[in-house]
């Protein structure tokens, strides 16, 4: 079987919320290049925004001296985004699906982002090694275009 040609891109940026717009533009541009329609490229960049926001808030606790590594790899069949940090990991698998009415009552705001990531992407996987390397990898398939 002929091997699919893979395209790889990488950026490293300081862990600050004012970089989110740049990250969305970067990922959106590559998703379109990979062959996703505009609406699906929007969904991919939203999922990446959510993942980076989680790293900035929870893993790095808004410490702007920390860095985030973001890799985008795509081929004809899919796009994969890998976000790596060396912060204090937290395990989103332990989070329950958010109960919105409870959220309102407790004025809690977390957990919505992870729910969005899972809804928007075809695969979301985490690996943890706090202080060494935490990774979230998200995949979306091109042929699942709605």
């Amino acid at each position, binding site marked *: 079987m002929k091997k699919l040609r893979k395209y790889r891109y990488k950026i490293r940026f300081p862990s600050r919320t004012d970089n989110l717009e740049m990250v969305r533009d970067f990922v959106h541009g590559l998703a379109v290049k990979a062959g996703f329609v505009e609406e699906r490229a929007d969904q991919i960049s939203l999922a990446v*925004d959510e993942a980076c926001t989680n790293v900035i808030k929870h893993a790095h606790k808004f410490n702007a001296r920390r860095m985030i590594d973001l890799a985008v790899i795509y081929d004809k069949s899919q796009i994969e985004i890998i976000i790596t940090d060396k912060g204090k990991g937290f395990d989103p698998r332990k989070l329950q699906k958010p109960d*919105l009415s409870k959220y309102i009552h407790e004025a*809690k705001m977390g957990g919505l982002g992870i*729910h*969005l990531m899972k809804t928007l992407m075809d695969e979301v996987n985490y690996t943890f090694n706090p202080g060494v390397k935490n990774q979230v990898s998200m995949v979306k398939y091109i042929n699942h275009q709605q």
Partner: protein
Amino acid sequence: MSGFEVSRNDYDHISVLYLSGFLDAHTAPKFEDGLQKLIKEERVKIIVNLKNLDYISSAGLGVFMGFIEEIREKGGDIKLSNLSPKVFKVFDLLGFPALYEIYEDEIQAKTKYSETK
């Protein structure tokens, strides 16, 4: 430049916040400030007009969640209007239409407030 703006218009007992640009974890505090100011001034019948909002992430949705109970306890509400299909989709994915009144335009939201005055 943050790429996000909040402006406000007061009409009788209703206040409208107009959001434009990109509402994410970076810009959400600006929206929070806008809502906090309204609560302080006891202007709790609020419409958030999203006509010019290009983008929202869960950090922006969290602001709606964070204030709604206090506002409703004070006899007010946050009603939403003029959502683009793209922004509505994000609200919809998180189940917001069951918890917030969403109107096609600002006039409809205002009318709703007038009916329940």
